[in-house]
């Protein structure tokens, strides 16, 4: 399709309009507010870069940032490995693979908030009971400190999201033409070699998508954070999104919150887009 052609634009119109209305215009407004003393309803004056200066001295923000970075690194790796693993598992031919697909995906059918509440049960009751029964100390006292809070969040996120990532990988896996896999079998490739040499390169777009998704979701995660640890104890597990929300609503500092959101956006965008650009280039080399 030529980009000057009418159809190119017609095909894009609905999404572009919706994006503009729903995302871009509000973001620009938000950007503007970040230079004011906006309280969510009105603002009285422009404050220049004051909010941006403030946020770089905001210990909570910095803490949340590093906590989130750690979380993102761990979950991106785990989610992609496990998600892809599950996808490969359930695309094998064996009895019950369809059932398992459903099972692995089911956590997504429950909203993040409720999930967090349910996992609290598991961590506090289930782990405790198990830990006592098996005399495994590390199972005790979950969510009571930063470390277990961190891993608690990781576990819940992985449990919930890997099914999500799985079905994306499945969709792309299904698109690989049979004949190419057959050719690889004839060429003597083992299952693992077929995966690394054929399947994986062929699903490179899925990898890009999933990397991006896990990356951006990791940075944006809020519901699970709220319901599982609520940032506690002592705000040690407060992640970026939560810090932004709390700044706005608990402290009624909306303009600072917008400024944090903008900085957050810039950081995440830089990381994610770099990642996408890199992977897309890799993909382009592949095709």
């Amino acid at each position, binding site marked *: 399709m030529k980009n000057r052609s009418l159809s190119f634009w017609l095909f894009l119109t609905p999404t572009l309009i919706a994006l503009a209305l729903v995302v871009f215009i509000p973001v620009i407004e938000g950007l503007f507010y970040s230079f004011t003393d906006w*309280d*969510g*309803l*009105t603002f009285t004056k422009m404050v220049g870069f004051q909010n941006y200066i403030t946020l770089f001295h905001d210990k*909570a923000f910095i803490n949340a940032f590093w906590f989130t970075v750690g979380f993102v690194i761990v979950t991106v790796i785990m989610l992609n490995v496990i998600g892809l693993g599950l996808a490969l598992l359930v695309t094998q031919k064996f009895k019950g693979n369809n059932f398992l697909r459903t099972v692995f995906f089911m956590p997504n059918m429950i909203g993040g*908030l409720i999930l967090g509440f349910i996992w*609290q049960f598991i*961590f*506090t009751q289930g782990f*405790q009971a198990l830990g006592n029964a098996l005399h495994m100390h590390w199972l*005790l*006292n*979950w*969510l*009571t*400190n930063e470390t277990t809070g961190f891993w608690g969040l990781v576990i819940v996120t992985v449990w919930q999201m890997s099914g999500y990532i799985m079905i994306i990988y499945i969709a792309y896996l299904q698109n690989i033409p049979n004949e190419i896999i057959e050719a690889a079998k004839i060429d003597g490739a083992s299952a693992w070699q077929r995966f690394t040499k054929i399947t994986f390169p062929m699903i490179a777009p899925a990898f890009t998508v999933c990397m991006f998704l896990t990356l951006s979701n990791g940075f944006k995660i809020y*519901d699970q954070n*709220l*319901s599982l640890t*609520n940032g*506690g*104890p*002592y*705000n*040690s597990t407060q992640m970026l999104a939560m810090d932004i*929300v*709390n*700044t*706005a*609503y*608990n*402290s*009624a*500092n909306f303009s600072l919150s917008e400024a944090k959101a903008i900085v957050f956006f810039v950081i995440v965008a830089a990381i994610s887009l770099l990642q996408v650009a890199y992977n897309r280039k890799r993909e382009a080399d592949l095709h």
Partner: protein
Amino acid sequence: ACGNSSSGKDVKITILQGKVENNKQFKQIAKDYEKSHPHVKIEVTSIGGGTQYDPVLKTRISSGNAPTIFSLAGPADVQQFKAHEADLSDTKAAKAAQPGTLSAVKTGGKTVGLPFNVEGYGLVYNKQVFQKAGIDPNSLTTMDKLEAAIKQIDAQKSELGIKGVFATPGKEAWVFSDHLANLYIGQDFNGNALKLYKSKKMPFTKANDMKTMIDLEKTYSIQPIMQLDYSAQVNQYFSQGKVAMIQQGDWIYPTIEGIDKDFAKNDVGMIPIPVPGEEGKMPVGTSLYWAVNSKKSTQEQKAAKDFLDWMYTSKEGKKQVVNKLHFVPAYKGYSNFKMSDPLTSAVFEYSQNHKTTGWAFPGYTGTSWDPDVAQPNLQKYLSGKQSWDKTVQNMKDGWAKQQKSSNN
């Protein structure tokens, strides 16, 4: 009787309020009101669960979808929404409000809020356990006595069939930062939220008293306390008779009742925490206020005020407030009512007898000091990561810092 004044034209008022657990009852009350006031339509909405009330109110206001009646949690909210708050001083309800209950919502000579109710908190105890242990809870009027009782109960935990004296919810930082700290911080402000809210400094002179109490709650609780949350505290342990007492308020009654009706009716009671210097007094206050949106048409505002007046001052309304909402009224004229459960009865009794101290904590709950300073520091202390002195110091410094930069 009052609704008919509205010139025959239909009005619709919308209510957005922050007490989800009572939403159903409010809806029923509104229905009743609609029956007797055919020209008024009332839509009641509530915000619950994981989302805070404020953002929703803000977005509703900024999107032109503002409610006629909304709720305010304290001076900070009063400040935030001041552009939308109508003066309610001329309402019957405002005039009937009990002394002191309006202090947090008076601003610039106006009264912008009407209390939902009053609530009180203290040590909610398990009658049977105390009986078995041979201790009269009402005798625990000083810290020493309380401490002795706690130790005694703790020593015979297994005979009493409990897992701990307390169930202390380390996860629910507000239990300490709001309720407990209020008892000690509030003394410096006479229990006045507004005063606290306006204060540049937080003396926190009674910090050591607080340490004694918090240490008791921490040491003699089911462990690990940092894993306990509200539902563990109330639903899982207290309501199932697994602890002797918890630091909570009358609002937990419906929860206990939901778990075990008989237990709730027969076996629970509440005593005040014996705060040195304020022994025998229960902290009673208001957590939420009704406000009327001043940006709405006068007709709508009027209808809203009429409704609130009706609810709190008419005969039918009062009945609903006490029997349906199980509110301890913040208004005069309820002396012939009997509260429906032991906890509200306790609160009602203390407030009727004026054996109360004020709630100062609404003066800081709406500020960032609470979530950003008080709660994390207290949690740090509770998890043994920080000394008490440091905790207190941080709290004081944090307050001073916040107040310096704020403009009220």
